[in-house]
């Protein structure tokens, strides 16, 4: 009895001491959906975290929890982080949206940043990258690289971000190759190498010779490499270990500048709830080096497209574009507004199959 009491007191004292010590440091928490070694999405977020540490050194302390399932478990992890004295918490997957809002209500003094979502609150910012601009470049290359005119697409979950990517890639593949077709598989996971490999193999068996992925692991790259004549693109991270072939280019997410800026804002006390959506122009979306497996003229036109997207001269969704059912969406020359893009739940004309509801 006495011993437990003693231990409990010690623990409380220790807890107090550590909170007191944490106070002069800004504590930044990260909640990751996959492992930091996934080589894709979470890997890049973790690079952003390391950049924050490097930039601020002793003034900042970062903590992270990896492979947190989207759901109640995420809420528990965030609550724990907030209780442990985190000042700023980045929740880096779409499925953390409601948990983030719920936890943020309980901790009004803690700042939250939710990636790829659309629900804001006084202490919850949302941020995302315009990945669809990268998808446009990808579609442009893919449409010209395919010989079978079948492009396989591994989707994760049917959420606006992923649907935007499919539409953007398709529009730009069709623009350079009117015969191109997309075969889409929904994996219903962000990270499951075995399932992603199976999906890639199935697409290849059904005639696809270009595989685009919106899942986080490098497994589809390995499957394409085994098949021998299939082109892939790095997703979220450069995945350059599969270059120059099958990986011919990639979309790279660069979160570091944003994470540093937001941490700085918390330190200065200037943090405000914001909605950030940056693209190629702001450097949040990068296009990985286009390898020599791509013919020079295709590479040149892809880089030109990238430059136009970066300068804002061209929007990835520029009319005339119809929805899948044939109804008009964008008139000639009209560009999509951010509101429509943020909630995009429909395919453009020419894509087959239905968006799962």
């Amino acid at each position, binding site marked *: 009895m006495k011993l437990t009491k003693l231990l409990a007191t010690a623990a409380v004292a220790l807890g107090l001491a550590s909170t007191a010590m944490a106070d002069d440091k800004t504590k930044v928490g990260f909640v990751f959906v*996959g*492992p*930091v*070694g*996934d*080589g894709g999405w979470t890997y890049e977020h973790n690079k952003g975290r390391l950049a924050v540490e490097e930039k601020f050194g002793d003034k900042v302390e970062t903590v992270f929890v990896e*492979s947190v399932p989207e759901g109640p478990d995420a809420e528990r992890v965030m609550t724990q982080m907030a209780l442990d004295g985190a000042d700023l918490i980045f929740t880096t997957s779409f499925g953390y949206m409601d948990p983030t809002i719920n936890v943020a209500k309980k901790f009004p003094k803690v700042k939250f940043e939710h990636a790829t979502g659309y629900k804001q609150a006084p202490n919850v910012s949302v941020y995302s990258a315009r990945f669809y601009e990268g998808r446009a470049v990808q579609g442009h290359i893919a449409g010209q690289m395919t010989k079978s005119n079948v492009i*396989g697409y591994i989707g994760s979950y*049917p959420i606006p971000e992923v649907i935007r990517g499919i539409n953007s890639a398709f529009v730009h593949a069709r623009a350079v190759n009117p015969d191109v077709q997309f*075969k*889409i*598989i*929904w994996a*219903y*996971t962000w*990270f*499951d*190498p*075995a*399932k992603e*490999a*199976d*999906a890639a*193999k*199935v*697409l290849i*068996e*059904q*005639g696809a010779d270009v595989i685009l992925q919106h899942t986080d*692991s*490098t*497994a589809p790259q*390995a*499957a394409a*490499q*085994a098949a021998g004549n299939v082109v892939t693109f790095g997703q979220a991270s450069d995945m350059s*270990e599969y270059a120059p072939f099958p990986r011919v280019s990639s979309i790279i997410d660069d979160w570091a500048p944003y994470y540093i800026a937001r941490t700085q804002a918390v330190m200065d006390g200037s943090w405000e709830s914001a909605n950030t959506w940056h693209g190629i122009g702001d450097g949040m979306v990068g296009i990985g080096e286009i390898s020599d497996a791509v013919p020079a003229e295709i590479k040149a036109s892809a880089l030109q497209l990238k430059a136009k997207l970066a300068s804002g001269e061209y929007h990835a969704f520029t009319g005339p574009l119809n929805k899948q059912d044939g109804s008009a969406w964008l008139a000639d020359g009209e560009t999509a507004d951010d509101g429509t893009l943020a909630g995009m739940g429909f395919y453009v004309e020419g894509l*087959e*199959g*239905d968006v*799962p*509801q």
Partner: protein
Amino acid sequence: MDLSAINPVLLIASLMVAATPLLLAAIGELVVEKSGVLNLGVEGMMIVGAIAGFAVSVETGSPLLGLIAAMIGGALLSCLFAFLTQFALANQVASGLALTLFGLGLSALMGQGYVGVKPPAMATLDIPVISDLPVIGPIFFSHDPVLYFGVFLTAAVWYALKFTRIGLVLRATGENHDAAHALGYHVIRVRVIAILFGGACAGLGGAYISLIRVPQWTEGMTAGIGWIALALVVFASWKPWRVLLGAYLFGGINVLQLNLQAAGVAIPVEYLAMSPYVITIVVLVIMSRDKTSAPGSLGRIFHASS
């Protein structure tokens, strides 16, 4: 919708590949549970096997050595479980869960230097003429050796449990460890051997994913297959052939649903995505309506004094 895009021969061939890791892990766990021990650490042993096998085969250039290392790795990790539950008499559920968490962390640590490395390829069976036969060739005679080993192991476990003295002792230990002890069998020894066997099988299953099915190393790459293996053993009522059936059914529907999606079949994707789980459970539940139940001493701690 274009069903002609689905090639049934390739479909069957790839379902066998998809089912093998699950089959290996589940057969190992079946033997463990038959001996009266519930080891929830399958996922952890699989992932440790996956990285141990991957690392060794990359370093030595030999896939075979990698597979052996995977079995050793899985068995070594299960040693920890055996020590905790058989000698320290710890709770099996808690120890098993701890083993999974430990295995996931340990494998991430071991795998630091292996992200993005390509393992040496495993040779597939290639018998002249026979492997080139239409239909039969790709389905039965063109796989990697581990796949055949999985089927062989199922048969061997079935035979050993049903017809041999070792199997009888193992089952006796699992059904009633006090009676087995009274008859003079060494309960702890039998269980430790069973646990090691389960660990080796799980390790091999893990290495099958990292060396043959994917093939690459990424953290957490077993992604829950160990848990499915655990469930499969229960739904298969602890019968080896039903485990095989369940694993093939699960793998098959998994591959089939991906094929149907790619072919643009009009069934909502959500139903397709959950179909492997639902159909496997339904079929095995229907089959397990006979009176077989769990081994009597499953999950109970044995000590000679009690």
